[in-house]
């Protein structure tokens, strides 16, 4: 395969009428990667103060058929979950990612909620996860994989409940990247993205049959965001 590699690189250089990039040019380009400079950032969200960004985030998420419930504190999350299940007439059963951010909530207040901590399996109707950030620009959630947050939990259950705090709302995707970079450098000293970063904008959908939009293609049919208002 080394052969194929060298031939492809050789063909690129021949077409560009030059040899391999010079060391000077290479270090310029490496610096460019290191700097990861931002390009055009829409002012829609970047031009707003944090409170207005939260409002925009909610409006955009609802615009793509996610639902949003605002609660005052983490202590109110179990109640908001129970309300959602009751409203949708769902069994009081859910699978929860083994996430310390969720563990701290007073689930014992709602003894009727039957919670399984761990990986989602086929047949799990409702799942609850935390998230890494919310992008106001398009109402997009950012979820990262890890031992406490398996990716499949974002896709297998019919109803995906996501818990987030208002200070997790950022303006742009670029802001979310920077948070990921900062977290990675804090824990490992270098920039290694999680195996999977899911940018999720509303529940799963398709328009493959006669251009008619139907929610619930292969991923969740409903996406419900529980937003904790305390910072």
């Amino acid at each position, binding site marked *: *395969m080394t052969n*194929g590699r060298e*031939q*492809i*690189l050789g*063909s*690129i250089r021949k*077409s*560009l009428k030059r040899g*391999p*990039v010079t060391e000077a*040019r*290479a270090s310029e*380009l*490496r610096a*460019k*990667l290191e700097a*990861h400079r*931002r*390009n*055009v950032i829409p*002012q829609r969200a970047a031009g707003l103060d944090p409170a207005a960004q939260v409002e925009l985030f909610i409006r955009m998420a609802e615009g*793509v058929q996610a639902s949003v419930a605002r609660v005052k504190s983490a202590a109110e999350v179990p109640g908001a979950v129970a309300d959602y299940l009751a409203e949708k007439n769902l069994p009081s059963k859910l699978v929860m990612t083994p996430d310390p951010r969720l563990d701290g909530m007073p689930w014992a207040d709602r003894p009727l909620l039957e919670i399984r901590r*761990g*990986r989602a399996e086929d047949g799990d109707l409702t799942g609850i996860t935390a998230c890494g950030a919310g992008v106001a620009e*398009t109402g*997009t959630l950012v979820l990262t*994989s*890890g*031992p406490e947050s*398996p*990716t*499949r939990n*974002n*896709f297998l259950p019919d109803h995906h409940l996501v818990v987030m705090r208002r200070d997790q709302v950022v303006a742009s*995707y670029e802001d979310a*990247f920077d948070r990921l970079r900062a977290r990675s450098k804090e824990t490992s000293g270098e*920039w290694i993205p*999680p*195996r*999977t*970063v*899911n*940018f*999720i*904008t509303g529940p*799963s*959908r*398709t*328009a*493959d*049959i*006669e*251009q008619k939009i*139907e929610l*619930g*293609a*292969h*991923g*969740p049919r409903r996406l419900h965001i529980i937003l904790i208002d305390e910072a």
Partner: protein
Amino acid sequence: MRATSHAFKANAHEALVDATLQRALGVMKSGFQVRRAEAIAKLPEFEALREAGKAIKNHTLENLDFYLEAFEAKVAARGGQVHWCRTPAEARDKVLGICQRLGARTVTKGKSMIAEEIALNDFLEANQIVPVETDLGEYIIQLRHEPPSHIIAPAVHLVKEQVADTFRASHKQLDPARPLADARTLCDEARGVLRQKFLRADVGITGANFLIAETGSSVIVTNEGNGDLTQTLTKAHIVLASLEKVVPTLEDAATILRLLARSATGQEFSTYTTVSTGPRRPEDTDGPGEYHVVLLDNGRSAMLGTEFQDMLRCIRCAACLNHCPVYAAVGGHAYGWVYPGPMGSVLTPTLIGIEEAGHLPNASTFCGRCESVCPMKIPLPKMMRHWREREFEQKLSPAPYRAGLSLWAFLARRPALYHALTGIATRVLGAVGRRRGRFRTLPLASGWTNVRDMPAPEGRSFQSLWAERQRGAQR
């Protein structure tokens, strides 16, 4: 798939008289165009983003060798592997080798145009591996043994009754009397059937919208979530991507992502944008155990430095298809290969040869809408013209056409003679056709008059009227 691009004229003729196809295409025209226009109207920075996106791709193409090597180094650092493949055959063998080593029997697939380009499904089937398409549109056409007719809406040529018939014929395990009247029921049925396939598959294959040199990641964009289940629940994730998918940084991908969904479906952002880096980590409880990027050249490196280099900026959004009057009239299958519409008319000849695909760059009115809606500002009509020139130079166009063009060129280079002859012709045609005002038949012009009348000239040419008016204005 066997190309039928040489038969474009016959294909197009069949498509035009296919009432069901015309009904399906009618739905398409209104949807995509309106939604795109609405989405763009909501983003004042759209034009600035187009310029930025174009600059990112141009910069990357000028330094493509550097960015591909940087990408490869990061993939390796994260425990994945890049496989450099010059030809479709090398890419197919690479995929098969990975599947066989893992003892794979079924493979789930997210939507990938590269998989279509290398005809992967037929090859896997011939080697006793069952490929399962999981994008709803791709799944439908796989069941029907058809190629996609559109690069982002592969089953856009079908109406729901045809989908219902297909499901009834294929899902024999289900009650034959079940109702399948609407899109909702059809989606639910496919969801149920495919969920079991996701859970049982051994290997997951996806395409890539971007490869990120900065991190060694691949990025896919879907609405259904099928690509995510494909790559999360299997032993290995194989990414199929062509060279030009690489961009330097996540920031660069974000800029182009802002253009992609709006140009494609008119969404502000697709439902799922997923950044994948290497295989699962030791502490993870799910994710693929292996991560492979099958990197395909297939003639792209040779496009660099030519008049077709700009085509490598294409992000496969399908805006050019959705706004093309020719595509809207004949649909995607008439083009006879993987990539239809304006982008296909430029790309297909480079991939399968101008001898096979010569009709495609001619299947354009040069109305210019494709270029005007292209988020990456690719000069598609100009490149189709380049292909027409090459076709002419290689003497591939029909002899009468070439003779006619030579005659016209001879006259056009001699303005005095040209004006004299056209002046005579307009006066003669004007006099002969005055009574009816139009011609039903004309010698040497049956291609025109077989399907419409030729209006009779009013008696004077545009140029003589123009000259007269200029004189009048000066007075």
